[in-house]
Structures are given as structure tokens and as C-alpha cells.
């Protein structure tokens, strides 16, 4: 916007930013523990979040600002393909219901804070746990950076140039995350989601009415895509894109569940039942996301032009044009806060991984819980500074490419995590070999994927042309699933061979019934330093 900074919008955004910053610092006192100097407290909020808090926390965690900005942008640019986010975030819940409750039970029985803790205990392999921890940290970093891209889109739409706003936002975010741990994003998530619900409901009522209804909106989109030369766009999927669409939705659903920040949200719940009920209730956010996605078409119908060549600005620009300034300000606040909540949870998840599975495991084996928590807190600052540096120093496109890679590599940790939740033949060494093969093949395929539209020769997308396997077809498939298939084949074959050779599995400290325990059952560990509420420890 060339007409300069919009004062009213800026004032409203600053108001909400100050509000959530105060909440973030005050969160230390919320459901106060005797001390935050323990990873269960700082990193998992005391493991006692009930149904509503978990719903807001996981909602704020899984449906990030970047999703809210990038999915409509994808629809704006390519059409139907961008709608994959809807099936993706519907099927995720039925797929992960069983795995999530089993993970909750075993983690509470044994005091696991991170996915790598579980892998270490279940497969008795610290090498495999290290691989899982490093993969988790590497995959999470660009995801945090992308949240900044979401905030920048809003900042640009308000007519502000330069990086100062995101630097301030991240410094304050880093400070209260350090101070309050997971309690901060959990508390802020209430504000974030309330704002997002209001904004989206208003947007999907007001904007289509302004634009003459959905008939007009889809007709305008159809006209745009019919006129364009690109082969993949349109308001329906091209026949070559159908397999790519469903595999991307399926693979993304699997990946989202095993991201470390999802585990953090799941393990912070107070009971197995809380998780189950949330798997029923969380799709409410998907409805929201689906309606938001259609804003991409509304932007086409309204003739929105992105700022510069940043397509991610189309939703903020659309709000600017369709809403009065004060409501646009509320909408921008919703997006900006929506970026801070997941960024905080992701940083905490990465820090837990570093403190537990690298620092304590390799650097200082006799670390006390206080030292562990201290290291995690400091790591969270480093992680945020790193994400900020990536966005400031490097082209935002780079963080989008990295995020693409992140999704593919995090999927390679799935066999170790999910096969471990049931009694399977999977052998620790085979899982490590499968992980290595999956990582290598995934990265190789991504490197080998050009994007003719942007002129990139490498890392041009996450769709693998099946014709490269010698199959005579124009179908494509999500790269993450191709690599996961290679990974699983190695795991199964090698596990069978190792069993045949009589090579012993690593020591498994879990027992079959550990996966079905509920809060209050004997042996479910109480959290050190936590107050009241929970039942007395047995024995």
C-alpha cells in the first residue's frame, strides 16, 4: 500500500500485542507449580491441561498463522490443489486417535517428555533416539521461521516497511516463553482462537455478500484459471493431480501428528480421555480453515493484487479492502497472534528435545532436573534467534523450501515412533537403517524436483513424477510418502533378517499394559512439584 501506514490498524494490533504479552508473562502464575525448574513444568505446563485448554492449545498449535495465510494464497494461485488442507486436517484425527492415546499413556507411565524419549525407552537405542531428536529439531526450525513470514504479510499490508516489527514481536515472545514455558502459549491461545473465529465468521458472511455470492466468486476464479497457461490450475483438479492431491493430504496428516510440537500438545493433556475427546472436537478448526481457504477465490473475484510479488499478502490485502479499518486491525491481530502461539510451542518442543535427548544424553549425563530445564529455556532463546536470522538474512522463499523438506524428513521418524506403539517385529537397528534410507531418498528426490514455474532447478516442490520410476503415467505423488515407503521396506526386511539371525532387540523398558493406562491408574507418574488436583501417588 503506497498511501503509508494505517494508524488505526496499527494501534489495534499494538493493543492486542501488549495484551497477549501481559498474558504471556502472567502465565507463570497460572495454575502455579511450586517451581518451574523442571521440564514437566516448563516444557509441558505441568501435564495437567484439561479438555478446553488442550483444545485451544492444539488448535493454536496445528492451525498456524502460516496455514491461514498460505492456504488461501495457494488457492489464489493454483485453485483446487490448495484445498488439500481440508481433507488433510479432517483425516488426521481418525488416523492418529489410536496412536495419540497410546503415546499419552506410555509417556505418562515413564515420564517421557519428547518423542525421542519414547524411542530411547522403547527400542533401547540412544543412536536411534538421537536421530529422531535431530530430525525433529531440524524439521521444526523452518516451521518457526514460516510463522514470521505470516506476520510479515500482515505488517506489509498495514503499509509498514522493514523488519523492526517482527524483531520486536519475537524478542518479546522469546522473553515470555523463557519465563512461563508452555503455559504462555496455552493462555494466549484463548485470545488467538477467539479472534480468529470472529474474523473468519464475519469474513465468510460479509465478503461473499459484497462480491455477489459464491456463484460469482467461483465464476471469477474459473475465468482466471481458464485464461492462464499453467497446466495444474483450475477450480477442479486436473486428472494428473488427483493422486498427488490425496497423497499430499495423507502424508501431511501423518507428518503433522509426529512433529515434536504436536507431541508436546498431546503430552501436556491431563488424561487419555482428554486426548480422545479432542480428536472429536478439533475438526471444528478444519471447518474454519476450509472457509478461510475460499478467501483465495474471494480475492480473485475482488481483483486483489498481492503486494510486490508476495502472494502471501492476498488475505491481508483483501481484509484491508473489504473491511473498515478497525475490523481489519482486529483481523491482522488475529493473524499475528496466530503466528506467535505455534512459534512458542514449536520452540519449546525443539528445546525439550535438545535438553533431554542431546544435552542430558550426551553432554552431561548427571544433569539435575533444574539444569535440564535451564538448558531448555536457554535453547528456546537460541531457537527463536535462529528462526529470526533465517528470515532476516535469507529470502523468505528459502524458509518455504526448508519447510517443504521439513515435512518430508519428519515423516521418516514415523516408523520408529508409530511401529513402537504396538508390538511389532520392528528392530531398533532396522529402524535406524530405514530412517537413513528414508532421509537420503527423500532429500535426493526433492533435490531432483525442478519447478518450471519459478525457474528453480532443485527443491521445486513436493510432488514426485511417477514417470521417473519408469511408469508410463503423468501422475505425481507426495515425495514424503515415496521416501516413507522406502523407509518402511527397509525396516520390515531388515527386521525379518535380524530376527532370523537371532540378533537381540534393544532393551525395551515398556510393558504392553503401559500403553493403555489412564490418569490415576497405578504406576502413572505424578509430576514432581505439581500441586493438588491430581490423585495421591500409589505406594
Amino acid at each position, binding site marked *: 500500500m503506497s498511501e503509508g501506514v494505517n494508524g488505526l490498524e496499527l494501534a489495534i494490533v499494538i493493543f492486542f500485542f501488549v495484551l497477549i504479552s501481559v498474558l504471556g508473562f502472567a502465565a507463570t502464575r497460572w495454575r502455579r507449580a511450586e517451581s518451574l525448574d523442571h521440564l514437566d513444568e516448563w516444557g509441558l505446563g505441568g501435564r495437567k491441561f484439561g479438555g478446553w485448554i488442550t483444545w485451544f492449545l492444539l488448535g493454536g498449535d496445528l492451525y498456524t498463522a502460516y496455514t491461514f495465510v498460505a492456504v488461501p494464497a495457494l488457492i489464489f494461485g493454483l485453485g483446487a490443489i490448495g484445498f488439500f488442507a481440508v481433507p488433510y486436517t479432517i483425516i488426521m484425527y481418525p488416523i492418529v486417535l489410536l496412536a495419540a492415546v497410546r503415546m499419552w499413556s506410555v509417556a505418562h507411565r515413564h515420564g517421557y517428555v519428547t518423542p525421542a524419549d519414547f524411542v530411547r525407552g522403547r527400542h533401547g537405542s540412544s543412536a536411534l533416539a538421537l536421530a529422531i531428536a535431530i530430525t525433529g529439531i531440524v524439521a521444526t526450525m523452518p516451521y518457526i521461521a514460516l510463522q514470521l513470514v505470516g506476520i510479515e504479510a500482515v505488517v506489509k499490508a498495514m503499509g509498514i516497511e522493514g523488519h523492526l516489527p517482527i524483531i520486536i514481536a519475537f524478542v518479546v515472545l522469546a522473553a515470555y516463553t523463557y519465563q512461563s514455558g508452555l503455559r504462555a502459549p496455552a493462555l494466549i491461545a484463548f485470545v488467538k482462537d477467539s479472534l480468529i473465529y470472529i474474523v473468519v465468521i464475519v469474513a465468510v458472511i460479509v465478503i461473499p455478500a459484497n462480491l455477489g455470492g459464491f456463484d460469482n466468486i467461483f465464476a471469477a476464479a474459473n475465468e482466471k484459471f481458464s485464461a492462464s497457461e499453467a497446466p495444474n490450475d483450475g477450480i477442479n483438479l486436473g486428472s494428473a493431480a488427483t493422486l498427488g492431491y490425496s497423497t499430499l493430504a495423507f502424508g501431511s496428516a501423518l507428518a503433522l501428528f509426529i512433529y515434536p510440537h504436536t507431541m508436546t500438545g498431546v503430552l501436556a493433556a491431563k488424561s487419555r480421555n482428554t486426548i480422545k475427546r479432542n480428536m472429536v472436537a478439533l475438526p471444528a478448526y478444519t471447518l474454519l480453515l476450509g472457509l478461510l481457504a475460499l478467501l483465495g477465490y474471494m480475492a480473485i473475484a475482488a481483483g486483489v493484487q498481492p503486494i510486490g510479488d508476495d502472494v502471501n499478502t492476498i488475505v491481508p490485502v483483501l481484509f484491508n479492502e473489504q473491511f473498515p479499518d478497525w475490523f481489519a486491525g482486529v483481523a491482522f491481530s488475529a493473524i499475528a497472534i496466530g503466528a506467535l502461539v505455534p512459534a512458542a510451542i514449536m520452540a519449546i518442543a525443539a528445546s525439550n528435545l535438545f535438553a533431554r535427548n542431546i544435552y542430558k544424553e550426551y553432554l552431561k549425563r548427571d544433569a539435575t532436573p533444574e539444569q535440564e530445564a535451564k538448558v531448555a529455556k536457554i535453547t528456546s532463546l537460541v531457537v527463536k534467534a535462529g528462526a529470526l536470522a533465517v528470515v532476516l538474512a535469507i529470502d523468505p522463499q528459502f524458509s518455504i523450501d526448508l519447510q517443504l523438506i521439513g515435512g518430508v524428513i519428519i515423516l521418516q521418524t514415523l516408523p520408529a515412533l508409530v511401529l513402537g506403539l504396538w508390538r511389532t517385529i520392528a528392530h531398533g537397528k532396522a529402524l535406524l537403517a530405514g530412517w537413513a534410507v528414508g532421509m537420503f531418498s527423500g532429500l535426493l528426490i526433492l533435490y531432483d524436483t525442478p519447478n518450471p514455474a519459478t525457474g528453480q532447478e532443485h527443491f521445486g516442490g513436493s510432488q514426485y513424477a511417477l514417470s521417473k520410476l519408469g511408469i508410463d503415467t503423468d501422475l505425481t505423488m507426495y515425495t514424503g510418502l515415496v521416501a516413507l515407503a522406502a523407509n518402511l521396506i527397509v525396516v520390515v526386511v531388515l527386521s525379518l533378517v535380524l530376527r532370523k539371525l537371532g540378533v537381540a532387540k534393544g532393551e525395551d523398558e515398556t510393558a504392553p499394559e503401559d500403553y493403555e493406562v*489412564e490418569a490415576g491408574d497405578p504406576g502413572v507418574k505424578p509430576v514432581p512439584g505439581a500441586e493438588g488436583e491430581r490423585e495421591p501417588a500409589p505406594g
Partner: protein
Amino acid sequence: MPTTLVDIRMRVFTQSPGYAPRRMERRSHRAWYWLLLIPLVGLLIPPIYNSEDPELFGMPFFYWYQLAWVPLSVAVTALVYVKTRGPRE
């Protein structure tokens, strides 16, 4: 949850027999989990819904069909939740 300390002690002393009836009970419910496959079948085969007609409120079939799966999937997951609920959940 009116679990008393005595209850917990009892369960600690009789841990394995204490687990057994609960686990068996859960096992008999397990067939319900197969229902969770229904949303996957509905959504992961795009040729089912990759068309413009029939429209609803001006929205092509492709879009409203997938959005309609949000409540349908919630209904399936909720049914599974209720049917597989343990005695104390």
C-alpha cells in the same frame, strides 16, 4: 473421579489381576475402531468428488463435499469414542 487411596492401594497389590478384566473389556470394543477408516475412504479418492456439479449455494461439488466431511468425520470419531470408552472415562 472418586478414587480413594484405599482403591489405589488395592490395585497396586493386585496389579496384574486388576488389569486383566479391564483389558479384556476394551478388546471386545476394538471392532469399532475400523469405523475410523470411513473418512479416509470418503476423502482420499478424489475422482469421487472431483466435479463441479451438483452445486450447493453456488459452491461446486468439489468444495462442499469435502467440507461436509468435517461433521461426518466428527460423527464417526464421536461414535468410536463413545463405544470404546473405558468404564472410568
